[in-house]
């Protein structure tokens, strides 16, 4: 009797597994076909000298070169290591280390997480120390500045979007018609395509007839050609991106806000907490998961910035708005160097994964 029961149970388990696989297979198939395989293929291409046009017409035109493409991107001639080769970046690492130690000291970070963060920062400090020495040069002198521009763009856009959309969501989290109208209004920009967004902002920033220029003229100033002006071109792209992207972050925060129990807010009111205190002590701690989600989504999304830089400034002036995906695009489709472009794409994947992992690690710690 018991043996029979055990056999039935085993078959039920097998059946359950089979059913699970039947449901999973379509997803697994699509995931493998459209994500895993292309990614693996990309890595494979990055190990070759692969000219897009030449290989199209002659599949044998590619050559396996191992990690040469990566070397060409990351390295140079006469490379030497100096302790403070890049004082700004290395200084930022030190500041970040101080910040993490402080959080550990006040009990907001565990020893293991602190140790991991410090290891990452130490590694970065070490890597930043490498540069071509006298008479040397980078094999590709545009790659690292392009990475720097991309990281700078993400560092500007992600906090700006997170803070603005959080404040908007908090202000509009109420059951009034005005709030509903404004929620729709702020979300509307999100549905526009990048082409439309860049067109709007190109007109806004035009030194000849742009809105910004007209306002400046009204106040007696001389309008700038934002998109051709060093220092302003990146700012223009950041502004356009923030305007474009706050909608979805705001909606996520609104969903998070609605999950906060009403009683908590009412209790805060009874305790005579003002709105700033309620925001700081009730809303913010309860939104930590949503903030983490928004930040990670934004990091992944904005590392892939392309349209704004491509259409508004063409990466200029002097490469100041050149970003990684645009460089990948140009290398693959203008220069036909698919091997190098794939190596850059793999690198982009790695840094997106690292940034997301660090953010995830730190925020998980917060929750605990």
């Amino acid at each position, binding site marked *: 009797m018991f043996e029979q029961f055990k056999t039935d149970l085993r078959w039920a388990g097998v059946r359950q597994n089979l059913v699970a696989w039947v449901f999973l297979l379509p997803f697994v198939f699509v995931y493998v076909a459209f994500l895993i395989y292309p990614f693996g293929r990309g890595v494979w291409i990055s190990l070759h000298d692969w000219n*897009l*046009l*030449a290989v*199209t*017409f*002659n599949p044998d035109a590619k050559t396996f070169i191992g990690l040469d493409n990566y070397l060409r991107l990351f390295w140079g001639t006469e490379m030497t290591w100096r302790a403070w080769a890049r004082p700004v970046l290395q200084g930022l690492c030190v500041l970040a280390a101080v910040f993490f130690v402080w959080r550990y000291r006040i009990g907001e970070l565990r020893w293991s997480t602190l140790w991991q963060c410090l290891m990452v920062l130490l590694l970065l400090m070490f890597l930043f120390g490498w540069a071509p020495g006298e008479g040397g*040069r980078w094999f*590709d*002198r*545009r790659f690292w500045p392009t990475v720097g521009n991309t990281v700078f763009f993400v560092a500007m856009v992600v906090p700006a979007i997170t803070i603005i959309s959080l404040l908007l969501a908090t202000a509009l989290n109420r059951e009034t018609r005005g709030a509903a109208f404004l929620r729709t209004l702020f979300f509307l920009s999100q549905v526009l395509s990048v082409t439309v967004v860049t067109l709007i902002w190109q007109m806004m920033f*035009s*030194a*000849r007839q742009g809105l910004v220029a007209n306002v400046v003229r009204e106040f007696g100033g001389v309008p700038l*050609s934002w*998109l*051709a*002006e*060093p220092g302003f071109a990146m700012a223009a792209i950041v502004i356009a991106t923030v305007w474009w992207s706050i909608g979805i972050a705001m909606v996520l925060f609104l969903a998070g806000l609605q999950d906060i129990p009403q009683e908590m807010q009412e209790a805060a009111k009874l305790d005579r907490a003002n709105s700033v205190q309620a925001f700081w002590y009730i809303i913010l701690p309860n939104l930590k998961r949503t903030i983490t989600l928004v930040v990670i989504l934004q990091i992944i999304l904005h590392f892939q910035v392309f349209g704004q830089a491509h*259409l508004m400034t*063409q*990466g*200029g*002036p*002097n*490469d*100041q708005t050149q970003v990684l995906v645009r460089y990948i*695009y*140009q290398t693959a*489709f*203008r*220069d*036909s*160097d698919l091997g190098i472009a794939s190596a850059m794409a793999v690198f982009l994947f790695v840094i997106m994964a690292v940034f997301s992992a660090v953010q995830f690690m730190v925020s998980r710690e917060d929750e605990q």
Partner: protein
Amino acid sequence: MVNYKDKKAEKVTTMQKTFISMIAATALSAGAVMPAFGTEVTLARFFGSCQDAGTDVSAAVGEACIIQSIINAFDAENDDFDVTTLPTDWGNYYDQIIASYASGNPPDVHVMHRHRIPEYGQIGALADLTDDLMAHGIDPDDWTDSAREAVTWNDRILGVPMDLHANLWHVNMDLMEAAGLVENGQPILPSSPEEMMEHAEMVREATGQYYLAADFSEFEIGVRMVLAFLWQQDSNIFANGTATINTPEARNALELITGLFDGGYANSRTNYADSQQSFLNGEAAVLVNGTWVVDFYAEQAADEDVELTHYYVADFPTLYDEPATWADTHLWAIPASVKRDNPEVYEGALQLLAFINDHNIDWARTGHAAVRESVLNSDEYAALPHRSEYDNTVNIARDTPASARYGAIQDILNREFQAIWLTGKSIDAALSDAEEDVQSQLDR
């Protein structure tokens, strides 16, 4: 491999036959005009878009409308072929074309530049048209030597040339007159760098306007100016696989241009649209731009609402030893796969190219130089507006040496030169970086 287009064409043909029989029966009884269905020929081009180009080629103005009206006219006159113009964008045109070749689905016929022939020619991407042109009424012997060279790769003809286009000086005669720079109805143009600065000062003193405008912050117009000044000093950006950019000649050319900005005689921040608008608004005495806008500016000058009134077109002036200006050629090509796999479409594409070749005079109305001797020697061509004012341009036309890396090299020069006048990078540093980057492209 199953060719989707063949299958589609086959399907269309069967459907077409049935449908046409039905229509024909109705048409015969009602005396109606029978609609045309033909083999689809896809076409990719830049030149911009034209709303309602129609089929009246003679009424069209501007590159986009003239070429689209020629295509539409062919489409209307030929029941056997339906030409579909694919949506493309100038800034990404070649990227789109490369991607379409890589995906095995290039347009059946597409426009390109002479400078791209090495890139496509060396891998056999383009159809060899040499033995099929005469049979379709295209006579390569009627083309100018320069046009024939433009489409020839390893002694084979890979395209049908359409024009020779070059940088010109578009002149606002009212501003020049006010500055005392007009003699016998012609503008007085500088013959040396020093004279150019003198003229610039004269224009500013007399009118308060810029002497020269150009797109210095977007496309490669500024690069083409520098190149012209290099060639005028018998220098070039590379020769025999070695980059030669960091030279005294390049320094001279760049110092000349930055001198205009430093003196307030030109604005380095203007892009293509802004520079054109400032010229039409009468804010600059000279606009450096190509042949492709001559008919448009002439039309604008005739418009009472436009500030530019007296418009003149001049050859790019010689400021150094030898005359030279940047030039290139637009040409039409057919992918080798179309000739190999799809004879019907190839036939349609060739007939279209013959039609475009026949309309060379209409294309020349834009301001471009014609490529057919028979057109160049015609009275109609000589009578085109402003034509006589810049007829020496074809003799001074130049371009950089052929390279499969032309696009990347132009981009490097544009980036580094813009860095000088937009971000204050030193000329020496920019030339050194440009030379290094161009060399790395040449080494690949």
